[in-house]
């Protein structure tokens, strides 16, 4: 019975594990290194916790996260154990060497360590076009994360869900390794796990599962059957090294598989983004397969300690060669990076005062010990640099011979470090420490790329105050129709309220327009005063076209400009001829004027007759909003209208910028509508958009 065999195997594995643990403990004890032991214990506890969590959780996302931590813990344990073994071996070798012969003074100079940071990992994908058009079955999704290993430190990135809507896998984490030697090897491994539902082994009853697998499409069914097999539950391959040493306990749940890996080292370090090749393991048949392009982009920076820390400091006397033999300057010198900073006093270093002078210590510097100065007993050091073609030499001496010797040692060490770290010592590379952030919220499943297109009102900082004011005015107008209006608008509206007789005047304007002359409703007599304030509001009515003809906007507007006087005459005559009731047009301006009229008078108009179907207004809008005649490039839809309006005649009706005028004038345009209009403005090819960043 397969189930029994399984249980037996598990028991055996657990026993083996216990034995291994004892062996490890022994090694650790013999090495007298309790540090690694503690780390291993910690990781084992974490791993047990992860296993329990995995067994207990029901949500797919939780299971994936738990499996990820399980994978990380296992890898860490493997790393610590191999380090332990290596240390043990080294100890044994050392003892053997000591026994054999006196090894002699260890003359090897060790290069300084440094910080290595990898950030902005990006792995491009190469989806086939068939993937996009395949509608059968569910979206093929995988959960991926990266495991980064340098020396004994192992870090994992956050998990990312990948499906065909993504073109690259991006990991935002910055990972910093603190103690890296110049010969470091940073191993980057990409693990992935198939994340389709119903594939968690053991959760679906077998009968149902077999039915499903036979009824699903061929490839989906294959994957399902593969997942259901007990083979899928076998322990994750641990890289081949000592497979019996602490095997991973098999836990039902999602398993991560190694999809690709690469190793980065010192030649790959650079202060900018670079692309490296990935070695891909696995093929298309695997459930965890993702079509990788084959490379990984990242920024690998290194900060050797010799560049960031003070390598040597102390008092010394400096003299420039060729100067007065008595002009020794006593300074407190600090060797850091590619410079020897000389301060007047030691306290200056802490106070961040600028050094008195700086001597460069870089690849081109030559340092040698000079012969004994006849005047003093101690040896001195000569530091020669080339500053712009000229040779400048500083002579440095200290009080006693040991100090000089120590300084020479420090310089030699610095040169050695620079030769080992190569390009990292040319300039200090910046490493941004990851700031502690709140964990990013899990994004919901998105159906397509189009879900990512957020249409928001552009936050253009350059819109003028009057534009903002204009927008506010429009909102208020609409609100005032409902009876409420904030007090500050009374500043603008006091004239309106003073003349109750006007409403009739204004409203009767409406019928005075022929359907073909677009509009400029002349203002009521109070308008000249308002003109300067609302000059920017007056989107040229020539821009607003008749709703019934999209194409007629341009000819109409020309027409309009030629006709200003007629509008005034209309106004004057309209009061006397209320009978000039033409059939209501569906013109935009008609509505605008109605809006104005209503604001002045506050109601009393037949709403229904003035309300054109909103759809018809939407179409002319793009033509209206972006006049190609405007020579200046437009910033937003509002400023577009403002720029054109400023060139328009001032007697144009203070009609609103198209933004709020269309659609439902008698109700507040919803933000969605407004953003829709913005979108149309943005999508209109005649605009050349500019965005402020």
């Amino acid at each position, binding site marked *: 019975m397969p189930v029994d065999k399984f249980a037996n195997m598990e028991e055996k594995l657990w026993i083996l594990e216990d034995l291994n643990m004892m062996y490890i403990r022994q090694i650790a004890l013999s090495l007298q290194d309790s540090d690694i032991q503690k780390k291993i214990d910690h990781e084992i506890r974490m791993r047990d916790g992860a296993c329990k969590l995995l067994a207990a959780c029901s949500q797919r996302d939780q299971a994936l996260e738990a499996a990820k931590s399980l994978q990380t813990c296992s890898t860490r344990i493997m790393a610590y154990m191999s380090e332990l073994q290596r240390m043990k071996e080294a100890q044994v070798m050392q003892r053997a060497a000591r026994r054999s012969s006196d090894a002699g003074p260890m003359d090897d100079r060790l290069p300084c360590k440094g910080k290595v940071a990898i950030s902005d990992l990006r792995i491009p994908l190469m989806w086939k076009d068939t993937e996009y058009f395949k509608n059968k079955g569910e979206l093929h999704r995988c959960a991926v994360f990266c495991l980064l290993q340098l020396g004994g430190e192992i870090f994992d990135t956050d998990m990312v869900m990948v499906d065909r809507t993504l073109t690259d896998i991006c990991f935002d984490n910055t990972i910093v390794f603190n103690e890296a030697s110049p010969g470091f090897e940073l191993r980057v491994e990409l693990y992935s796990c198939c994340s389709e539902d119903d594939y968690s082994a053991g959760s679906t009853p077998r009968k149902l599962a077999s039915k499903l697998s036979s009824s699903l499409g061929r490839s989906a069914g294959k994957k399902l059957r593969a997942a259901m097999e007990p083979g899928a539950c076998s322990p994750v391959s641990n890289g081949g090294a000592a497979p019996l040493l602490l095997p991973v306990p098999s836990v039902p749940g999602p398993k991560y598989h190694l999809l690709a890996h690469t190793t980065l080292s010192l030649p790959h370090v650079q202060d900018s983004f670079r692309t490296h090749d990935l070695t891909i393991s696995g093929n298309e048949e695997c459930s965890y397969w993702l079509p990788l392009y084959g490379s990984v982009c990242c920024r690998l920076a290194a900060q050797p300690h010799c560049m960031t820390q003070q390598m040597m400091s102390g008092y010394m006397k400096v003299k420039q060669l060729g100067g007065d033999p008595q002009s020794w300057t006593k300074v407190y010198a600090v060797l850091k990076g590619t410079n020897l900073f000389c301060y007047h006093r030691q306290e200056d270093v802490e106070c961040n005062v600028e050094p008195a002078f700086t001597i460069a210590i870089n690849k081109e510097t030559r340092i040698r010990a000079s012969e004994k100065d006849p005047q003093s007993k101690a040896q001195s050091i000569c530091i020669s640099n080339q500053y712009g073609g000229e040779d400048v030499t500083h002579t440095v001496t200290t009080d006693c011979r040991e100090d000089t010797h120590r300084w020479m040692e420090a310089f030699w060490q610095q040169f050695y470090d620079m030769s080992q770290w190569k390009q990292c010592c040319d300039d200090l590379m910046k490493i941004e420490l990851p700031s502690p952030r709140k964990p990013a919220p899990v994004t919901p499943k998105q159906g397509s790329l189009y879900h990512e*297109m957020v249409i928001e009102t552009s936050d253009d900082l350059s819109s003028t105050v009057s534009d903002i004011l204009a927008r506010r005015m429009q909102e208020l107008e609409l609100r005032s129709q409902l009876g409420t209006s904030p007090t500050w608008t009374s500043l603008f509206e006091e004239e309106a309220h003073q003349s109750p007789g006007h409403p009739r005047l204004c409203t009767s304007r409406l019928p005075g327009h022929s359907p073909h002359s677009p509009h400029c409703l002349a203002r009521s007599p109070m308008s000249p005063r308002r003109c300067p304030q609302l000059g920017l509001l007056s989107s040229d009515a020539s821009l607003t076209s008749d709703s019934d003809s999209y194409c007629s906007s341009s000819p109409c507007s020309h027409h309009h400009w030629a006709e200003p006087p007629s509008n005034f005459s209309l106004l004057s005559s309209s009061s006397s001829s209320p009978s000039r009731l033409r059939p209501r047009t569906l013109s935009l301006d008609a509505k605008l004027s109605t809006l104005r009229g209503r604001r002045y008078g506050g109601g009393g108009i037949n709403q229904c007759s003035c309300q054109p179907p909103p759809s018809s207004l939407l179409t002319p809008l793009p033509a209206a909003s972006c006049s190609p005649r405007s020579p200046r490039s437009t910033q937003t839809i509002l400023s577009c209208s403002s720029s054109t309006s400023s060139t328009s005649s001032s007697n144009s009706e203070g009609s609103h910028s198209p933004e709020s005028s269309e659609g439902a004038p008698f109700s507040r345009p919803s933000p969605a509508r407004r953003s829709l209009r913005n979108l149309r403005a943005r999508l209109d090819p005649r605009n050349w958009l500019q965005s402020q960043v």
Partner: protein
Amino acid sequence: MYFVPGQPVTAVVQRIEIHKLRQGEHLILGFSIGGGIDQDPGQNPFSEDKTDKGIYVTRVTPGGPAEVADLRMGDKIMQVNGWDMTMVTHDQARKRLTKKNEKVVRLLVTRKSLEEAVKHSMTTYPKQ
């Protein structure tokens, strides 16, 4: 700096690193961009080749982080933090520059004066 569609582009670029400035709850860079593959390239006042649909710097706020980093008006942005900007829509470009979790943007920009400088340094002057 003209390009042939379908052929790789080579350009002399300058690296510019801009540190974003916090203004209220926004992180701003202090310049404006124009262009994009969804925009009309004929209206670009800065491009030499009027079929170039790349992203250009149209305005640099004086005293802003971009000006400090020596970004100039008329620069064409080729890359932002490793992301290509020669074949993107306007909105994609804006988004790549305004990521909330990035405090630094590293741009590769090209400008006509760079090309000229290289050309000058490569031509040999007649000895006198």
